[in-house]
C-alpha cells in the first residue's frame, strides 16, 4: 500500500505538486495522466527518494519514508523498481552487465545466480541472445525493454513507469503496454504508470488519475473516466474516440 498525504514539491517559487492526497492499494495498476509539466514524473521521483518533498508524507507499506536519508532509501528502492522515461542504460556496459548492475549491488548472489536472473528478466520482456551487445548496438525499443528487464530483475513489489512509451512507434508502444500488463499480472506487482496515453490507460489500468497543474482533477476506473465531464479528461478522451473512429 502506498499513500501520499498532502504532498508538496516546489522548485524555487514554482509549486509543482500542490498537496496531493491519494493512496494505491496493493496489486493495482494505476495510470497517472496529465499534460507535460504537471508534476507526474516529480511525483514518482519523490516516491523513490530521487527528490525530497517540501511538505507532506509518503507512506510505503506502513512506513513514512519522506524523511529517510540516502542509505535508508536503499531498502525502499529495492522494493520500488523504476523504469525511466529514457532507457537510461549505461553506455559502456553490455546488456548483461546493465541488468546485473542492480543485482550485484542490492543482493549478494553468485555469478551463476546472476546469469539465471538476467536470462529470466530478458525472457519476461521477450528478448534473447543480446546479452553481449552494447546499448548502442540495439534499437531504441529494445533499449526500453532492456531497461524494463533491468528493473524487474530485482523483483520489486512496486513498479514505477515514467512515460514508458515516449518516443516509440505505435507497434512498440503496444508491445510495451502489453508488457506492463503482463508483468503486473505475472509478478503480482503494484504498478504506477505515468503517461500521456489515455487509450492504453483505458485498456489496462485498474484506476486512472488525471493531474493538472500539480493537482488531481479527476480519478476513477476507466469506466468512470469515460463518463467524466472534466474538460481536460474530455480532451484526452477525444483522441481515443478519434482513433477508435478511425479503426
Amino acid at each position, binding site marked *: 500500500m502506498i499513500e501520499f498525504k498532502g504532498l508538496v514539491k516546489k522548485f524555487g517559487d514554482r509549486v509543482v505538486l500542490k498537496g496531493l492526497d491519494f493512496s494505491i492499494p496493493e496489486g493495482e495498476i494505476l495510470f497517472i495522466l496529465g499534460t507535460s509539466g504537471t508534476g507526474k514524473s516529480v511525483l514518482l*521521483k519523490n516516491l*523513490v*527518494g*530521487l527528490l525530497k518533498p517540501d511538505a507532506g508524507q509518503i507512506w510505503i507499506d506502513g512506513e513514512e519514508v519522506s524523511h529517510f536519508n*540516502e542509505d535508508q532509501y*536503499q531498502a525502499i*528502492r*529495492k522494493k520500488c*523498481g*523504476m523504469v*525511466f*522515461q*529514457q532507457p*537510461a*542504460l*549505461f*553506455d559502456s556496459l553490455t546488456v548483461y552487465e546493465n541488468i546485473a*548492475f*542492480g543485482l550485484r*549491488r*542490492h543482493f549478494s548472489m553468485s555469478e551463476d545466480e546472476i546469469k539465471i536472473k538476467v536470462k529470466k528478466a530478458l525472457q519476461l520482456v521477450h528478448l534473447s541472445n543480446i546479452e553481449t551487445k552494447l546499448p548502442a548496438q540495439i534499437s531504441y525499443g529494445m533499449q526500453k525493454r532492456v*531497461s524494463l528487464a*533491468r*528493473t524487474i530483475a*530485482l523483483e520489486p513489489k512496486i513498479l514505477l513507469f515514467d512515460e514508458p512509451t515516449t518516443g516509440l512507434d505505435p507497434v512498440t508502444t503496444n508491445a510495451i503496454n502489453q508488457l506492463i500488463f503482463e508483468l503486473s499480472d505475472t509478478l503480482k506487482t503494484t504498478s504506477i504508470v505515468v503517461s500521456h496515453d489515455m487509450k492504453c490507460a483505458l485498456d489496462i489500468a485498474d484506476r486512472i488519475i488525471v493531474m493538472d497543474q500539480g493537482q488531481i482533477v479527476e480519478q476513477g476506473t476507466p469506466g468512470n473516466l469515460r463518463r467524466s465531464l472534466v474538460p481536460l479528461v474530455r480532451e484526452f478522451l477525444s483522441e481515443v474516440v478519434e482513433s477508435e473512429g478511425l479503426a
Partner: protein
Amino acid sequence: MINQAALWINDLATELGRGVLFFLNIVEVWRKKKISRELMFEQIWKVTLQSSLTTGMAGFFVGAIMTVQFTMQMKDFGAMGYLGGLATSATIREVGPLLIAFMLAGKVGAFTSAELGTMRVTEQIDAIRCLGADPIQELVLPRFVAIIISSFFLLGLGLILSIFGGILMGQFFSGVNAEEYVRHIPTIVSWPSVMSGLIKCFVFAVVLAAICTYRGYTTTGGAKGVGRAVVKTAVGTMIAIVIADWLTSFIGDLLIRAFMGN
C-alpha cells in the same frame, strides 16, 4: 545596474556554496566508502593516455621557449652555464604545473563534464541511485582521484620533455651543449622549487576535478544543458586555476618569509 550586479553576486555565491558542498560530499564519500580500484585505474589510464601527447608536446615547447627567453637575458651577463638550471627551475615552479592544469582543463575537464552531464540528462545517474549504488562513489570519485593522480604523471612527463626541448634549443640557438645545460640543474632546482611545483600541481588538479565533476553532475536541460556545462567548466576552471596560482604563490611566499626570514 546595481540590481543586476547584486543578482550576479548572489548567483555566484550560491554556485560557490553548492560547489563547496559537492566537494565536501566527495570527501565524505572518499572517507567513508570504498573506492573501486578497477574504476579508478581505468580512469587514470584514460586521463593519462588522453592527455599525454598534448602535454608532452606542450612541455617540449615550453622548455624550448624558456631557454630562448633566458638566453636573451643571460647572454649579456655571461652566465650561460646556468641556462638549463634556470629554465628548468622556472618550469618546475610555475610554468609546468600551470600548463598541465590548462591542458587538463581543456581536454579532460571538458570531457568529464560532458560525460557526467550526458549521464545526468539521460537519467543514468538517477538509474544508478535506483539500482542501489551511490553515483558519487561509482562515477565522481574515480574521476576525481584519477585527475589528481594523472596530473602528477603528466607533470613528470611534461618536465622531462621540457628538459629535452631546452637541451635542443640550447644546443642550436644558445650555443650551450647538453652536458653544460644539465650540469647546473641540480644546483639551481632546489627542494622548495620542487615542493612548490608539486603543491601547485595538486591544488590545480583538485580545483579542476572539483569544477568539472560538479558542473557535469549538476547539469540540467538536455543537450543544450550539457553544452552549457562544458562551457562553464572551461571558463570556470581557467579562472579558478589562475586565482589558485596567485593564492598558492602568495601563501607560499608568506610561509617562506615566516620560516626562512627575508
